[in-house]
């Protein structure tokens, strides 16, 4: 099992077996290079752990635990986990500030505890297979451990609604993903999942009463603290630089906390439509960083897509993770193994257009006859000026669907989910039948907290964004999985839980001020960045989609093979005749809309998942890295 995770930890393996439990670990050395080998145990070897990730507050937590009488044998962050568990029991996880997937074995109680960080930065999968509980950071390790993988139509239905299956659901029938902020406790032959944290608005009078300027000052202070904590490592830490507010802000703050020149990394595209090189170059000059760029072509996206899916292990509807996989390769080649990223700011401080669109719609719904209110969409989406639906009557019909259905939890997201769900049209009757009567949207909305309906609109929208797109797609297919493909650890200061909790207690108008997104964050960073970056409207990160899979108007060979009627028929998920028409439309370059491109990428990625994980056929790329010479392998007893 552990060898299949070699890319996540190429520096060596460690094992521990005790009665019914086996723990294995692939190490990526970052903290306590000499002493941080896992598994790690407590003083009397009754509590053992392996974990992936970082406990950023390990220095403070260790001091606290030592003062309580615990003795440490290493300088690693891992060891704080076993002592914190001894001290606090299952509440140990509440004392951790970090990004983690933990497995802990309590020998005395014969209890196995799995724990995942609050927002789902690190993955953790498990399955029950022939009376055996298997768990691992990636699904391929479960397969290596003997689990049989088949695709679950419900998982596909969710992926083709929310852009990913929503935890604990996965694309695979018998595999579960531990949801963010949860523990799984296995004891006496039973497993129970327990939530210890969730992304909710917080009522805190002291924070709610802060002025906008005071709130910006607090955001700055807390963000600096998060960056300071997340720079902890015994290896150099680099940073991604997209040219936008979030990553530029992080790099600017990092400069205050390191004596060396900061090393930054970015993606550039051959197609001007997707390229942000100019603003990246301006930021590099301003921040004086040592900067390298990976240039990405359409062709590379098409060619590397199978390798991407080997790492994401799920159908996806966008190609945007490929360039990020290439970027982490550049980081690795540059001799770095840790990078800070600007991910999370849009969720915490309301940066996405979807939040603004919902705000306009709620405002318009108070006076549905108002033409002026509906014309605000033109300000939000500049492209509408040149679009047929920019016409006020069309805009009304386009954005006005269910306008006054304000109590609908999916008020903001319904339109995005509906567009993605058009991929369902390609399902075969058998797949449809398996999904018959299954409303994945209603089922997901059924799991919302009881208090949800009482929250303000923005808080509701932010909650759903974090529950669906953030952990299922952005932190996974576009985050951990593409970084770890090249043994790179990404760190996300904006998702420090204390910063999230603070932001979740701020009034909505501090985040969305009028239609200005992330207003309080802009104010917090105003003296750290040039004015044009502070004022710049968010540019969505995108990459070329279906066009990447055609060369001289012909599909790439593997695309032809996987989307052939015979292959589609054998797999059984999609109707070959419908898919042929879609492929033809893409081949002719007529697929210009989101819906067609999402369908093409979604269907192709599903076929790759099927081929690699269900049929177990290996593709011609490095799927199982060999154990390198000199790699340490040891069994800890």
């Amino acid at each position, binding site marked *: 099992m552990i060898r299949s995770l070699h890319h996540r930890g190429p520096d060596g393996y460690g094992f521990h077996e005790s009665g019914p439990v086996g723990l294995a670990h692939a190490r990526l050395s970052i903290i306590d290079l000499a002493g941080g080998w896992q598994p790690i145990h407590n003083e009397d070897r009754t509590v053992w752990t392996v974990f992936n990730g970082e406990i950023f507050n390990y220095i403070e937590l260790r001091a606290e635990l030592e003062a309580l009488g615990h003795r440490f044998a290493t300088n690693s962050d891992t060891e704080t986990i076993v002592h914190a568990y001894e001290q606090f029991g299952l509440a140990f996880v509440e004392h951790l500030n970090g990004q983690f997937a933990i497995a802990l074995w309590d020998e005395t109680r014969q209890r196995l505890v799995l724990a995942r960080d609050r927002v789902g930065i690190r993955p953790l999968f498990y399955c029950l297979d022939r009376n055996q509980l298997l768990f691992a950071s990636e699904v391929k390790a479960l397969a290596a451990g003997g689990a049989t993988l088949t695709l679950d139509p419900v998982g596909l239905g969710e992926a083709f609604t929310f852009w990913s299956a929503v935890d604990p659901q996965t694309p695979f029938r018998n595999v579960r993903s531990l949801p963010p902020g949860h523990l799984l406790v296995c004891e006496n032959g039973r497993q129970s999942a327990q939530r210890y944290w969730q992304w909710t608005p917080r009522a805190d009078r002291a924070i709610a009463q802060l002025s906008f300027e005071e709130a910006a000052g607090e955001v700055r202070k807390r963000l600096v603290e998060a960056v300071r904590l997340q720079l902890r490592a015994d290896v150099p830490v680099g940073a991604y630089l997209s040219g936008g507010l979030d990553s530029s802000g992080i790099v600017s703050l990092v400069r205050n906390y390191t004596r060396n020149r900061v090393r930054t990394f970015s993606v550039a595209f051959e197609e001007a439509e997707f390229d942000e090189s100019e603003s990246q170059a301006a930021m590099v000059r301003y921040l004086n960083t040592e900067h390298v760029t990976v240039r990405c072509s359409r062709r590379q996206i098409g060619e590397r897509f199978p390798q991407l899916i080997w790492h994401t292990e799920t159908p996806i509807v966008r190609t945007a993770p490929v360039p990020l996989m290439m970027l982490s390769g550049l980081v690795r080649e540059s001799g770095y193994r840790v990078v800070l990223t600007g991910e999370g700011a849009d969720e915490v401080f309301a940066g996405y257009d979807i939040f603004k669109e919902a705000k306009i719609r709620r405002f318009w719904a108070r006076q549905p006859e108002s033409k002026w209110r509906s014309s605000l969409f033109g300000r939000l989406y500049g492209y509408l000026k040149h679009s047929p639906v920019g016409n006020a*009557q069309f805009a009304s019909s386009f954005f006005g669907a269910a306008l006054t259905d304000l109590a609908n939890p999916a008020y903001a997201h319904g339109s995005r989910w509906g567009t993605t769900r058009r991929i369902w049209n390609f399902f075969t009757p058998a797949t449809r039948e398996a999904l018959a009567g299954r409303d994945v949207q209603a089922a997901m909305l059924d799991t919302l907290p009881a208090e949800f309906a009482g929250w303000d609109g923005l808080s509701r929208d932010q909650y759903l964004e974090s529950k669906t797109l953030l952990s299922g797609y952005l932190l996974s297919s576009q985050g951990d999985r593409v970084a770890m493909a090249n043994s790179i650890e990404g760190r996300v200061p904006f998702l420090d839980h204390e910063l999230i909790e603070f932001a979740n207690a701020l009034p909505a108008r501090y985040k969305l001020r009028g239609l200005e997104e992330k207003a309080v964050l802009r104010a917090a960073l105003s003296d750290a960045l040039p004015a044009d970056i502070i004022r710049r409207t968010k540019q969505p990160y995108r990459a070329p989609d279906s066009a990447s899979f055609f060369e001289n108007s012909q599909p790439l060979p593997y695309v032809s093979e996987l989307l052939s009627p015979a292959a589609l028929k054998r797999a059984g998920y999609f109707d070959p005749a419908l898919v042929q028409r879609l492929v033809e439309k893409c081949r002719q370059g*007529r697929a210009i809309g989101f819906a067609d491109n999402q369908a093409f990428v979604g269907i192709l990625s599903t076929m790759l998942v099927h081929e690699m994980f269900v049929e177990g056929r290996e593709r011609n790329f490095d799927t199982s890295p060999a154990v390198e010479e000199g790699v340490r392998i040891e069994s800890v007893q």
Partner: protein
Amino acid sequence: MSPKSEIKQFILGNYLFTNDESALADDDSLLKKGIVDSTGMLELIMHIEEKYGIKVAEDEMVPANLDSVVNVTAFIERKLAK
């Protein structure tokens, strides 16, 4: 083929990838039913302009002209009659 059948075939084949006529009623709203999104509307206009040699002016881009098979067909016939 009449403009009505042609437009219906175009919408069925291009957005729903099917020949099944029952998948679309002639008076279904293309936007409200989620059959066509904003870029899809652009495709439809390009198709009308190319196929029928007419020019769709900006003030003609309204649901009354473009949001259903019936509306599109009537619009084309009006333009061709001019």
